[in-house]
């Protein structure tokens, strides 16, 4: 064998390499690190009314970020997946220069937003430990928990089609071992402690937020406690406070919301017509088709659509659950109306058509209301109730009127369409004034996002609306006009998702 071959063989021979001095004995059952973390976890399980919580001493955190990678390795997460994040707080102004790293994972809230929002009960707050666990095999991948959590905790895996998140290493804790992050912190900055719900509530009231820049604690009652005596928290701001970050588009949701609202709008206009005996069976059929296209789009949003049958489980607390159930009940009603319209054998029941249509339209409006609440319930300012309701019901009216112009053009309806469109767009544009606000706020960031990186979409949105309105006035071009208006609303909804400022823990530079 020549030297090259010999050395190549040597390089690939792992037996020789690892065989020497390796620890082959599996006799060490006690974790070797136990002696270091013994005092960092409670000796006993939480008593009644108590739960486990993270306690982070910011004064000794040196910014090494080992907690993030230790969590990654010891939990065997995917390459890009991290359940712990770190961010930075910086001193405001010039008097007291300061920099403070903040490590953060799930706060195992007393009133978890994720759990309340989940439509399939894929979250469980363990009655003994208070740990908020995610049931990976229950998850349908709707990602609503991501929108609901004000701390950006659940992480979606496209590959797996589900979200996952920190479970406080519940399996380790139950075996008397410390969570990975606690084990790995060189400075003993992270501990597990026991707290009562009363303490969590009192702290939420007293300090309002976990750290500078974090969301109002009264929303979910996070259990984590950050200790800091070194710097005045009031004089800090997150390093990413001024960073414009575009959120995920969620295309299926953009399409679903726009189409279902357009369809509901058409049923409303059409049932109004029907109450005067002026029904148009083609218009209803079109609304039916548009509605179903929206539903198909929504299914594409799910990572695990086959598990979606459990969606009724969350009815008690989840607006998403209610929305989906509502959407599920609508098709039979809409179909019945069309069946009555089209099937000769049902002709004798046709008298009920107008009534059922009205019921369907009303039901549809309730669904739109549920859609509104899905977003308003996330407490994101850009999605607050009046704004979201204005947009969603506005789209319902505008697209519904535009759609019905195709089938039953009317000057009156056209006038209402134009006025509604002007009012809606005026509202959207008025929001942009926040860009000039002196104080930084989520609204200012949203407005800057629309005027900055999303400017092209905004211009497109306006152009489509104006063109659509103009074309709808021309009897031969109403179909094109209605499409323009629909796409204009689609663009509005795109901005709705991308420009929202999602609350989160402090991020990096």
């Amino acid at each position, binding site marked *: 064998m020549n030297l*090259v071959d010999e*050395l*190549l063989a*040597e*390089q690939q021979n*792992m037996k020789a*390499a690892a065989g*020497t*001095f*390796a*620890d*082959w004995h*599996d*006799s*060490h059952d006690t*974790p*070797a*690190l136990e*002696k*270091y973390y013994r005092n960092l976890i409670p000796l006993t399980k939480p008593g009644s009314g108590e739960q486990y919580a993270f306690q982070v001493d910011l004064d000794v955190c*040196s*910014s090494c*970020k*080992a907690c*993030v*990678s*230790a969590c990654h*390795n010891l939990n*065997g997460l995917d*390459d*890009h997946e*991290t359940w712990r994040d*770190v961010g930075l707080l910086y*001193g405001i*102004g*010039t*008097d*007291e*220069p*300061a*920099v403070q790293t903040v490590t953060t994972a799930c706060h195992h809230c007393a009133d978890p937003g994720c759990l309340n929002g989940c439509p399939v*009960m894929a979250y*469980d707050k363990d009655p003994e430990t208070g740990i908020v666990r995610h*049931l*990976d*095999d*229950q998850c349908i991948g709707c990602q609503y928990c991501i929108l609901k959590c004000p701390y950006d905790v659940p992480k979606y895996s496209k590959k797996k089609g*589900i979200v996952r998140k920190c479970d406080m*290493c519940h399996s*380790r804790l139950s*075996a008397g*071992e410390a969570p990975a992050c606690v*084990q*790995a912190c*060189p400075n003993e900055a992270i501990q597990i402690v026991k707290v009562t719900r009363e303490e969590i509530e009192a702290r939420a009231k007293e300090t309002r937020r976990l750290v500078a820049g974090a969301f109002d604690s009264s929303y979910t009652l996070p259990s984590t406690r950050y200790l800091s005596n070194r710097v005045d928290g009031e004089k800090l701001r997150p390093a990413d406070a*001024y960073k*414009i970050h575009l959120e995920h588009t969620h295309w299926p949701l953009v399409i679903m919301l726009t189409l279902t609202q357009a369809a509901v709008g058409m049923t409303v206009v059409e049932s109004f017509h029907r109450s005067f005996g002026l029904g148009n069976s083609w218009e209803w059929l079109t609304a039916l088709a548009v509605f179903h296209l929206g539903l198909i789009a929504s299914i594409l949003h799910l990572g695990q659509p086959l*598990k979606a049958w459990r969606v009724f489980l969350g009815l008690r607390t989840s607006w998403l659950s209610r929305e989906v159930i509502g959407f599920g009940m609508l098709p039979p009603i809409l179909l019945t109306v069309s069946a009555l319209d089209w099937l000769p054998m049902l002709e004798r029941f046709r008298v009920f058509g107008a009534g059922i249509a009205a019921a369907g339209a009303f039901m549809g409006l309730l669904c739109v209301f549920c859609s509104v609440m899905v977003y308003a319930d996330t407490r994101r300012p850009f999605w607050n109730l009046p704004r979201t309701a204005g947009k969603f019901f506005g789209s319902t009216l505008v697209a519904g009127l535009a759609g019905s112009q195709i089938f039953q053009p009317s000057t009156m309806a056209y006038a209402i369409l134009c006025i509604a469109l002007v009012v809606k767009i005026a509202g959207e544009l008025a929001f942009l004034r926040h860009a000039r606000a002196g104080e930084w706020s989520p609204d200012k960031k949203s407005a800057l996002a629309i005027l900055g990186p999303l400017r092209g979409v905004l211009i497109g949105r306006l152009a489509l609306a104006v063109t659509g309105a103009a074309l709808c006035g021309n009897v031969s071009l109403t179909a094109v006009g209605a499409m323009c208006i629909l796409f204009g609303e689609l663009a509005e909804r795109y901005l709705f998702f991308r420009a929202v400022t999602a609350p989160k823990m402090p991020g*990096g*530079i």
Partner: protein
Amino acid sequence: MKPLADFMEPLLRAWTGPLTSELVQTPGKFGLGRVPERLKPDATVHSVCGYCSTGCSLKVHLRDGEAINLSTNADYPVNIGMACPKGWEALTPLTAPDRGVTPLVRDKGRTQPVDWEAALRVFVSRVRDVQTRHGKESVAFLSTGQIATEEMAFLGVLAKFGMGMLHGDGNTRQCMATAVTAYKQSFGFDAPPFTYQDFEESDVLVFVGSNLCIAHPIMWQRVLRNRNNPEIIVIDPRRTETAMNSTQHVALRPKTDLTLLYGLANLLIRMGAVKREFVDVSTTGFDAFAEFVAGYTPEKVSETTGLEIAQLEKVAGIIATGKRVSFWWTMGVNQGHEATRTAQAIINIALMTSNIGRPGTGANSVTGQCNAMGSRLFSNTTGLLGGHDFLNPEHRAKVAGVLGIDEALVPTQNSLAYDQIVAGIESGRIKALWIIATNTAHSWIHQNSFRELRKKLEFLVVQDMFYSTETAEMADLYLPAAAWGEKDGTFINSERRIGRIRQVSKAPGIALSDFRIFRLIADAWGCGEMFKEWTSPEAVFRVMQKISVGQPCDFSGIEGYEMLEREGGMQWPLPPGAKPEKQRRLFEDGKFYHPDQKAKFLFESPRPIAEETCANYPFVLLTGRGTSSQWHTQTRTGKSDVLRKLYPKECYVEMHPEDAAKLAIGENRRVIVRSRRGKLTATAFLTATVSRGQVFIPMHYATTNQLTYADFDPYSRQPSYKYCAVSIERADG
């Protein structure tokens, strides 16, 4: 209702299943505690981390002999069960897609994969050709602090004694050449005196130009384990993470540290803090030093440094009353235009207050790279193997004797330093270059000039684990190297601890360890005979032990690799018969390595900065480590998704809010930073952690060193990365 709910629950809620089982944990044994069932190891080994000089021991989880996961070694005396995120992610770069899997030869601008035989033919014929036409000395090598000591020794002996090269230096020139020179001149040998235990035993810790919290987080762990409620003095122009943790932040003007230290020495003398007995017995030159620093009055020092006199007095008072004062410095000192004298000014204070040789004391250089200390002793570049001297005939004879080679093969003159080799390319003196495991095209100061110089080289060989580094992409011949984790050997850490690195993974393709590449080259060159005993890293380790005999670093008492595994590494010196304790410091007997066994007080007047700010370039640019998750030019840390999440993606510049306001630069605005040598675009981050008139850019971004000014310390030839003049303007005009 309850029974019904209980009955329905399992039907409706999936508590188990294939997705849940991915994360299910099980006792991992081997002292690991619970691990994911999927990643349960069947053996573990310990290996010292390949990033920084802290030298943490990592616990690699193996299955069928190959690494599947990694955690920390709970009982190693260095890191006591901890690691920073780079260590935790140490295995990730091994599987990066841009690993070199085969040698590449550039042919008419295109690179072609070739086998080792062909690569070796190209290497030998091209290098020989250049040497024939321009002389043997026209070929030089640039080495690294990132490979095993055994590999460094192999490279140094092969290049200089085998191939007849005269000039070779390492990237360690960029990080600790200053400490080497300062120690050599002051103590008589390059000997960082401390052990990490000293962090825990001090009652006063003084950090000069060191952001230990993020550059050496696991050393900071030791500071926090200090139970003496110590005073922590941080001397740094920026309010760094470490400064945040200080009890006294001394925010001096950049590069006025030498004046400050002389001023402190003067105050200490005035306060009567000099330990005369120690000074008389163990040092020389104190009286001249005292006379010299008398001119550094608090008023003068205050004016130069911008510090209040009260703070100077307070700091001096803390040092004077401290019982165990330790001084720690890193790149803020080493990378300066008068770095050696600055380091020696620190040493002087430690000497005069007798803060050396006792627990919790010392003038201590914290090194940068994982094996910078190995390179200092065995790279055979600017010093002869084992801390010997090329200029000393006895040393040459001794080394040649141990190696069994003709003494005439050992050069009788010193190598050029890194910057002089680069200058040699410019002047035509150097015609071919062999670069091993370093990214010169990114890291060298004033990097634009290096890119130009590439064109003047007739032949450039780059040996690296990645074919994609800025430097490898310029190469005529690329040799694919196995990485840390794919080879065996030893590293020496900052506290002189020799520790083991272990092969836990195969190398990709036909990549080979640097050790094996050197064996092949020696064989192809025709000097294989010289290395006939050098068949394994441990065999070379034994050769190095023999060379160390009689030197201050003598570690011939180490029984072999097995002992290093058993004892948790071993600090040098360990002469035969010495007691192998876990923590050992130098100079406990007050004897130094100069012939008179005394340490020297060395000093010199500060000299002006080479590129002062002016109307056109009104800001001082400071550079340094950005976060603990970034390493040097990011060729490895940039390959980990996890680490990438932990640092800012885009280049940013920290500037003071008032400076920004004057230039109408708002938060997060894009700005252009310009020096006389280049410009870059960055996002402005406004913070008072930098002072007015100063800006800070992390060194990891490829563009940073297009701005820096190539000034050098005259003794250590280390570049001054920490000061140059720049201007800032809004990118949108």
